[in-house]
């Protein structure tokens, strides 16, 4: 990457010996961090490493427990609630915070409307919005309503808003996580344009290749500690990964036990179509782990939801153990021994305000009825079992599960899914947002379940995970199966070729890329 900023330029924003604790739980230990004008500084680390907390502190959304912040050469206490934006420090959150029904121009000037005698100067705001969007080379009409825009365009609106606030530091939380490859390229151009104007960019990303390409410096966090801040020119993706994890990853995945060739086919899907997907066909055997790889939005979750009856399928057939299984609601699928574990822990998986027990038994509450009434002791026993089996750690079972770590939430959700004693389990992103140690535990649990004779589908956006766990891999692309890989074919390069549309398999040949 080019020299965006010489080392001689003083930092515009810096943090000295920042520590932060939530209650008695420390999440950041004495972190030093700085950003210079025109620089791109990436923050990376495993989930739970403290990245989000650090950027919240850098933008005033959280106050540090100890340590100081210096902005433009002066020690400051950043105002909370995003008021730091007026000082030129703007955060663009991952879940873009835009009011869906406002127009683009409204959104850019939200809270800072141009007014004259109490009336909005609509024409001026529209023209100004137009001008800002033009400087970004973005072709969005200022009168468009936000909800009609693509995610990438919404992000551009956020950036335009930041520019209109004369932002000197823009902090972004995983800005490319929701973008397609082409959108990411456009986004990179914007970042370069901004840095050329002297704007400092701080961003969190999990994608090492992007960091190598875009960032001038990288700060690695692990378990709330600062591991290193290094110029990108001195790094390789491998060395970053090594620093992030801090241990060898060789034993991360358990050994694979191939299912017998003549194992019973547990789940058979033929020519399945549903909103967003079409022509999906595959078999899943007892004891097998079938991976589903593909880019975000390639339709993997849609396949799972159509199979278990969360969405209505438009065509095709599903059989479970040879029986037709056209589920119209989830309870039927659970009764047939087919369970789906959602990737959206917080939105669809768990009741964040409820304790551990109600969450664990929600899917299978009927099992805990005695004469029609809930049997508390039976529920308690189920929780004790699940805690032992899945190593769920909570100091008190009545603590709201929203307060648990991502890893413990995930294990609880796994426990909830397995409470239904399914023969077939579809796990959607089973390790999203959890630390490596817990990931390893979950991988071993998945392998053990397969060895017990469960048939398992693992949907994952982490290619290593799919490769490390699966006996066979389905690669999805744009709602269709781009390929089915087995044995030695399961490599990162091969999956990427199918996922990106460079290579297409079998019956999908007739599709244009």
């Amino acid at each position, binding site marked *: 990457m080019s020299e965006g900023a010489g080392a001689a330029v003083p930092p515009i924003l810096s943090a000295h010996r920042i520590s932060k604790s*939530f*209650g008695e739980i420390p999440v950041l230990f004495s972190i030093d961090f700085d950003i210079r004008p025109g620089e791109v500084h990436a923050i990376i680390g495993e989930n739970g490493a403290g990245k989000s907390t650090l950027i919240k502190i850098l933008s005033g959304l959280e106050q540090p427990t100890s340590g100081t912040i210096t902005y433009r050469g002066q020690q400051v206490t950043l105002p909370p609630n995003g008021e730091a934006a007026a000082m030129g420090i703007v955060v663009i959150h991952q879940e873009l915070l835009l009011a869906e029904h406002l127009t683009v121009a409204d959104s850019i000037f939200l809270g800072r409307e141009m007014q004259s005698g109490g009336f909005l100067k609509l024409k001026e705001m529209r023209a100004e919005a137009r001008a800002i969007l033009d400087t970004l080379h973005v072709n969005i009409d200022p009168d468009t309503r936000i909800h009609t825009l693509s995610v990438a365009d919404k992000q551009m609106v956020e950036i335009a808003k930041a520019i209109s606030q004369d932002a000197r530091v823009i902090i972004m939380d995983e800005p490319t996580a929701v973008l397609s490859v082409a959108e990411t390229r456009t986004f990179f151009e914007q970042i370069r344009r901004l840095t050329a104007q002297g704007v400092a960019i701080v961003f969190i990303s999990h994608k090492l290749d992007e960091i190598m390409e875009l960032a001038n410096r990288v700060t690695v966090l692990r378990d709330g500690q600062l591991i290193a801040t290094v110029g990108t020119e001195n790094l390789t993706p491998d060395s970053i990964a090594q620093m992030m994890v801090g241990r060898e990853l060789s034993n991360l995945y358990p050994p694979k036990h191939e299912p017998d060739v003549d194992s019973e086919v547990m789940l058979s899907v033929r020519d399945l179509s549903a909103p967003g997907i079409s022509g999906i066909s595959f078999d899943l055997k007892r004891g097998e782990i079938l991976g589903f790889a593909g880019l975000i939005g390639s339709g993997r979750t849609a396949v799972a939801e159509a199979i278990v009856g*969360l969405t209505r399928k438009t065509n095709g057939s599903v059989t479970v153990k040879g029986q037709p299984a056209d589920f119209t*609601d*989830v*309870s039927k*699928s*659970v009764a047939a021994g087919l369970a*789906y574990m*959602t990737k*959206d822990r917080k*939105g*669809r*998986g*768990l*009741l*964040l*305000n*409820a304790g551990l027990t*109600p969450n664990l038994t*929600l*899917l299978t*509450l*009927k099992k805990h*009825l005695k004469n*029609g*009434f*809930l049997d508390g002791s039976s529920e308690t026993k189920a929780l004790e079992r699940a805690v032992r089996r899945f190593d769920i750690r909570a100091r008190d079972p009545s603590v709201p599960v929203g*307060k648990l770590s991502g890893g413990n939430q995930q294990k609880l959700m796994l426990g*909830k899914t397995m409470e239904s004693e399914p023969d077939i389990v579809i796990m959607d992103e089973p390790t999203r947002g959890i630390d490596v140690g817990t990931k390893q535990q979950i991988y071993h649990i998945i392998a053990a379940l397969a060895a017990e004779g469960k048939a398992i589908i693992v949907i994952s956006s982490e290619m290593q995970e799919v490769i490390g766990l699966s006996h066979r891999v389905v690669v999805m692309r744009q709602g269709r199966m781009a390929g089915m890989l087995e044995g030695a074919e399961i490599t990162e390069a091969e999956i990427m070729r199918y996922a990106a549309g460079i290579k297409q398999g079998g019956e999908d040949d007739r599709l244009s890329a």
Partner: protein
Amino acid sequence: MTVSVPEAQKAPKGFRIDLKTAGPLLALVLLIILGYSLNPAFLNEGNVTNLLTRSAFIGIIAVGATFVITAGGIDLSVGSMAAFIAGMMILIMNAAVDSWGASLATVLLGIGCSLILGISAGFINGFLTTKAKIEAFIVTLGTMGIYRSLITYFADGGTLSLNNGAREIYRPVYYDSFLRIPYPVWVFIIVALIGWILMNRTAFGRYCMAIGSNEQVARYSAIKVDRIRTWTYVLQGLCVSLATIIYVPRLGSASSATGVLWELEAIAAVIIGGTVLKGGFGRIGGTVIGALILTAIGNILNLTDIISNYLNGAVQGIIIIAAVYLQRGSLTSKRKKAE
């Protein structure tokens, strides 16, 4: 009171949750002390009985409303529904008196019709919110207007009165007692107990809380969200019908002024009791106390002349706002302690 036992059990866990769970009870106790100190007649057996009987109408409806609100819904139609059902009961019983004469069967027919009407009206609200996917606020705002205008129409703008013969037979349901406790209070106690069991000891109650706290999680947990939601409205309709059954013999009449603002009193009782308005957490015990608090305020104003009885609504309004503020206050202090 039996329903408050779980609060007492939870109390030792920590001072933090005290304000939220025991707060309504504390407020009721303070109100009773205030009432007694202003006028000792407040605690006369006659007045206490009167207070409990009056609170039964709102209380029974509020128990149903607790389920609707816990599951993330709202029912604004209960007041008009009560007026409509009362009117229909009177019309049906009067018609029956004409053909069969006034007898127990006439009254039972009226009661049966009330139950059918309540359950049907609840089902209609539930069906429209879940299947037609119209927001509960809109659906019940609509049915509220419909029932109110229907009772006005059937009463021809005036009052529907129950035939005197039938009234004599029906009268004891409101005015008589068993073990010195009036029948309406018994109905209230039984409805509250069944409600408490349903909410806390059955899958149905758990599902209501799950749906109210996150509908998506409920759907992904194989819960039949639409069916449970519809059931909460049916339950609400049933409660309205029970309240109407004990209300009709009180005056023996119904008019367009019957049950006015009951929906707001019921919702207020639910919220004062600690149920969360946006759903996910319901407390039947709290609702019972909430209904008692609301009735006690009116009763105290009646017995004393410090504040005009005409300001009853204003005092109730202040209490509602204060109750919700205190609950939120206890939540934020809890968060602060956790940090």
